[in-house]
């Protein structure tokens, strides 16, 4: 029976999805009760382990930093540059996409996948697999394994996730991936030339090429450190995410369909194709 289920799940048979949705819906009330009962215990544990008395202050400061980062990126002329880039590529602006606000109801519930969170919105709200997920600070991940009333979000800190990004103020485009760290990403593997003008502090946004899985202009982070490999004549950029991914409470799902037809670009895009995320099991 297990082999049969594995086979059916691998083939994405509809009845399996309905079965999963049905069981999840049946267990959901018990999980709700469990969350109410055990939530304080989890918070107490967190407070013991992570000095929780500063949590409220930290969150407030993080929100402020995120707000200021967003303001700074606008002040630095990035928005105008982004508009120019979008018009060149024939892409819609980010504001044109509808969004759905969702609550993060669970973090990772496994020992084997720490880069996943669960949200309380699903297909019934128009959410589909692959849609980008953001906070006010910027990009946090992508939707995967969408259920009727919930979905999982794979965070961009997962080493198997890749995003094509643009260094604001330059024409440097590279493939960014997670490092397994809480809030650090990297752009490497031949993406950025050694003689490029990228500097510490530069902002990183999604490039939104015609084959990109993300719309253009989503803030990702800023360059924290640059390592130059003279042998390979390339730079590796360490990126500090602008959104805090460690304590997600509410997120916004951008109803962006990467497969939707877009206007043909007027100029040839100069970016490499964005790599598909690897190892994203169907659950």
């Amino acid at each position, binding site marked *: *029976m*297990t*082999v049969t*289920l*594995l086979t*059916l*799940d*691998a083939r994405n048979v509809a009845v*399996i999805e309905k079965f*999963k949705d049905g*069981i*999840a819906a049946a*267990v959901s009330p*018990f*999980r709700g*009760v*469990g*969350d109410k*009962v*055990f*939530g304080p*215990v*989890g*918070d107490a*544990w*967190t407070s013991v382990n992570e000095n929780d008395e500063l949590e409220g202050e930290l969150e407030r400061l993080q929100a402020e930093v995120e707000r200021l980062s967003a303001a700074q990126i606008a002040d630095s002329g990035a928005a105008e540059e982004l508009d120019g880039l979008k018009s060149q590529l024939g892409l819609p602006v980010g504001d044109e996409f509808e969004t759905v606000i969702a609550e993060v109801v*669970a*973090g*990772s*519930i*496994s*020992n*084997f*996948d*720490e880069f*996943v969170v*669960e949200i309380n919105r699903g297909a019934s709200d128009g959410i589909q697999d692959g849609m980008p997920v953001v906070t006010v600070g910027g990009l946090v991940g992508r939707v*995967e*394994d969408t259920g009727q009333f919930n979905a*999982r979000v*794979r965070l961009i800190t997962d080493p*198997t996730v890749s995003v094509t990004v643009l260094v604001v103020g330059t024409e440097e485009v590279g493939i960014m991936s997670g490092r397994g760290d809480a809030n650090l990403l990297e752009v490497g593997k031949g993406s950025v030339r050694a003689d490029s003008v990228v500097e510490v502090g530069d902002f990183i946004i999604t490039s939104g090429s015609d084959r990109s899985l993300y719309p253009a202009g989503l803030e990702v982070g800023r360059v924290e450190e640059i390592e130059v490999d003279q042998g390979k004549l390339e730079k590796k950029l360490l990126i500090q995410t602008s959104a805090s991914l460690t304590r997600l409470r509410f997120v916004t799902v951008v109803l962006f369909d990467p497969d939707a037809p877009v206007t043909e670009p007027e100029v040839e895009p100069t970016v490499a194709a964005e790599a598909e995320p*690897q*190892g*994203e*099991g*169907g*659950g």
Partner: protein
Amino acid sequence: MTIGNFIRCAIALVFVLVVQVELFSELRIWGVMPELLLGVSIAAAWVAGPDRGAVVGFVAGLLYDLYLPTPLALTALAYVLVAYGVGLISAAVAQSGESSLRRVVSFTAIPIGITLFIVLGELLGEDLYGNGYVTLVIVATIYTMVLMGPIHLLMQWAMGANRNDARAPSRLEMVE
């Protein structure tokens, strides 16, 4: 299995699932949480023998699979195999040295179950093996073992009476 046992098993499994997902996913030690549903499968096999233990292992794994991004029934497959193996051992050793042996069997079955899950996942193309494998297995095994006492009591209640009364005759017993 009577209807009463069936209902008690369902209650026990949902309870442990909720505790695993809502409580112990937060109560991590060095980033590792206990594998309570694997513990349930082991305890059920010890209490009720290989066949009924395997059934409980299958359901427990399948419930957990619903919330994991790994393929559906991957956990169930690992738990079924572990539960059946533990059930065979429990039937073979009968009543000799039961208490200490139960600890040894559980202590051994937990890392085997975790490793089996990883191996099966890798065979199916999942990227489950990582640098933290040793830490994960050691911490998860000890963490789960600490909680095996209550889990055994819970499954004895769920499966009915004590283990000797509740356990179905195993193949080994029938051979003897």
